């Protein structure tokens, strides 16, 4: 008797397929979604021939494909059939037209800083947008920049600085790309004042899934603009973007330390509500050692903060917090290993944030460089999971505390990063089915929960289980997530509801009949 063979059920793009892990496996671990099935390669060869006939360079060798086998998360793996490096809107247009014709999936990648496999191609074409990464025009009068979509925010900052300019807000990560960020949101420590990174987009050149090259903005092809910004790459490839910029200023930094997450969150929200600082965010070493970062662009703003708000904050300065910790561990000697960890962490981390080459006269230059280098140095590893919760202001403290309890259960050490996002009422159409929770008014708040992997190895299922436990909180609170694509897309219907998802799916099917563009990311 030949062995019984099982056949993978092919899933219609846009539907959530069955989990291929046996129902009796991994008992006790709630499963929501696994990596998508690899596309089976149907009509690849005529598609590849058509591209080459059209003068498009398609690389199929292992060196090209292997480069993109995973993303920053390092838990999703998939090889494309071939790689195209984006060079122009016309080339991207030709690629997408051929992909529609031959029904070949195209996965678009910027900096590749997704963690859930959103920028990993499970077959088909990987379109590397970093090939289009030039600044096209800087207007220091109108305070705008026109740039290609694949540019890294850091490369943009390098160029803007030559003009004494800076972008408004961008992820604290040097290798995020502009196009990728506009598609998902992007948060910075100035988002409580300036909104998410996507809010700074004034106009875009987009190549639609059918291959049309379209300029869009709030006033031109507004519907497309609404869908593409915060659209998770479903409605077009951003080939160019016009962004707001501002004059560059170094930062006046203040750090306040708390032994309570809730108190720190409340103080951060107090600052935001009263526009008391230019930058604010929470970064924890442990849940009993919480840092509220507060910073300013000008002496005037700093002086006003000192006069009106500093005394209202319940956090300590560094010496005061050291005394606080001394008292805490004197009363709890059995927790001395925890104290030792804190001390070690302080010794490693603090100098990195105060390196003399980035600090002059008490001012921090290039905050993104300082924070991003620290992020990669102290939190980066070959495997990263960063589940997050986004809620309204009212629900945020509860979300942080409940998420923190999950982290404690799963990992000995972890970091929480919390920040507010000023919402723009006129951008409400962008916000539907995005990281902005539907019930948020004024500000949305986000918290990332990042376990420290240290030298431990965790199974993908353990990590998935951790993420699910965090994301279940979001469902219960009626919130949203920054990273709801890829391996977490099983939560999309749970958190947004069928009506909203089906409406967006219908729009997607209309815009992308063969469902070729970033097909496994959210639908």
């Amino acid at each position, binding site marked *: 008797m030949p062995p019984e063979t099982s056949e993978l059920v092919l899933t219609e793009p846009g539907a959530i397929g069955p989990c291929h892990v046996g129902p009796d496996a991994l008992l006790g671990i709630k499963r929501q979604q696994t990596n998508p099935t690899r596309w089976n390669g149907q009509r690849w060869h005529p598609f590849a021939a058509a591209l080459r006939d059209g003068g498009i360079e398609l690389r199929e*060798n*292992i*060196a*090209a*494909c*292997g*480069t*993109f*086998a*995973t*993303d*920053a998360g*390092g838990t999703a793996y998939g*090889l494309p059939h071939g790689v195209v*490096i984006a060079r122009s809107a016309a080339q991207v247009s030709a690629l997408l037209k051929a992909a529609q014709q031959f029904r070949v999936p195209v996965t678009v990648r910027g*900096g*590749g800083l997704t963690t859930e496999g959103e920028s990993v191609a499970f077959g088909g074409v990987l379109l*590397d947008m*970093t*090939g*289009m*990464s*030039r600044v096209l025009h800087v207007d220091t009068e109108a305070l705008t920049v026109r740039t290609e979509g694949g540019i*890294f925010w*850091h*490369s943009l*900052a*390098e*160029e803007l*600085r*030559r*003009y004494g300019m800076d972008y408004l807000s961008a992820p604290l990560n*040097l*290798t995020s790309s502009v196009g990728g960020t506009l598609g998902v949101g992007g948060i910075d420590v100035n988002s409580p004042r300036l909104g998410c990174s996507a809010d700074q987009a004034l106009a875009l050149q987009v190549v639609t899934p059918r291959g049309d090259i379209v300029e869009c903005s709030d006033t031109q092809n507004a519907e497309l603009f609404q869908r593409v910004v915060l659209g998770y790459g479903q409605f077009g490839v951003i080939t160019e973007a016009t962004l707001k910029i501002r004059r560059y200023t170094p930062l006046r930094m203040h750090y306040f330390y708390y032994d309570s997450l809730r108190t720190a969150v409340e103080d951060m929200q107090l600052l935001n509500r009263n526009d008391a600082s230019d930058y604010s965010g929470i970064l924890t070493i442990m849940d009993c050692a919480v840092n509220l970062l507060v910073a300013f662009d000008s002496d005037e703003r700093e002086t006003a903060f000192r006069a009106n708000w500093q005394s209202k904050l319940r956090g300590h300065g560094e010496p005061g917090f050291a005394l606080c910790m001394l008292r805490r561990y004197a009363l709890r000697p059995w927790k001395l290993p925890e104290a030792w960890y804190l001390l070690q962490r302080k010794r490693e981390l603090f100098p990195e944030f105060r390196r*003399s*080459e*980035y600090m*002059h006269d008490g001012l921090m230059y*290039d905050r*993104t*460089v300082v924070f*991003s*280098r620290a992020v*990669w*140095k102290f939190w*980066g*590893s*070959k495997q990263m999971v960063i589940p997050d919760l986004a809620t309204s202001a009212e629900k945020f403290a509860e979300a942080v505390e409940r998420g923190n309890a999950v982290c404690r259960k799963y990992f000995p050490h972890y970091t929480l990063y919390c920040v507010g996002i000023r919402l723009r009422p006129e951008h409400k159409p962008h916000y539907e089915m995005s990281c902005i929770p539907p019930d948020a008014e004024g500000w949305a708040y986000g918290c990332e929960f990042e376990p420290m992997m240290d030298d431990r190895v965790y199974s993908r299922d353990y990590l998935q289980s951790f993420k699910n436990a965090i994301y279940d909180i979001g469902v219960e609170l009626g919130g949203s997530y920054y990273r709801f694509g890829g391996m977490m897309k099983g939560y999309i219907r749970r958190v947004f509801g069928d009506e909203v998802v089906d409406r967006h799916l219908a729009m997607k099917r209309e815009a992308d009949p063969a469902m070729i563009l970033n097909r496994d990311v959210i639908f």
Partner: protein
Amino acid sequence: MFDFVINTPAAHKSYSDCSGCGLCTLVCPVWRRKRDLQHSPLGWAKALQHGAAPGDLVDALWNCTLCRACDPVCPERIDVSGMILKLRAQLVHPQTAVLQGRMAAQARRPAPACQEKTALLAGEALRAHPALLSRITALLDKAGVLVVAHDDGADISLALEAGVTVSPERLAALIEPLRRADKVIVADGLLLPYLAQWLPAARIFSLGETLSSLEIIRRNLRVTDLYVIEPRAYHADYVRLIKYYDRLRKERGCDFNLDLQRIAIPATVRGLPQRLGLMVPDDDAQASWVLHGRSITRIVVESLEDRAAFEKVSNVPVVHLAELADSLRR
């Protein structure tokens, strides 16, 4: 026995440790020119992690300029440039026999031992400008204790770049005459960390740092100067030199070819084909990028190679660091 691996903790890490952050890409001049991840350390590391062999990366590996900008930015502390040299050593460059022959010939002509406390390894570019070399020698030899080494290891430097094995005999011929020196000044930044390892008793300095620490030169730096650091030596001793140049910036107020990560932006993009003379260098775009958006009245270079690159694309005067002493006298 001399070691060709720089013995730092980073040397024990390799491409398999790359977590994929991409910080190396941001500082890579070859990536900047080509906008193609396959021409970046990140691209090689990821390709190798997922099944590619060094032979699949031949062009990209030869095109690397070994500016070492990727070394200090790597959060995993991988010796990225060392990794590239190891990968190159697994390939066989068509010029291998030529380079080996050159080294063998040099080994047969042992240089006399340096009798002075300080030795200068001038390098080929400086030797081609005898007037400037003599000016530098005069500046550095105030106490009469400096000697220009007969053998400056230019052939070894090129062999290292090409991944060609250097014989112990040839290396001994370079090192033995330098044993008496307690200070070695080297113009070729690639050799700097190797010399530090091969001559553990000596203090090794780059020519740029040595000249810029002279008061007669230092005080003639202007606020409107662009000071161009030679990248290879700077990145090889980044932790120390970043502080050195930061002090110089604060003292003199001049601009530097440093990016926002405080990495030196190279003025040239010369991979192995250009260094071996197999391809004509095309540095215009890179030199223009260094100058882009800066308001300067003069360019001061540590490296002669950079002077040529800037002279092609700029209207402001371009001077070698050593020439600042002359302008002060005038």
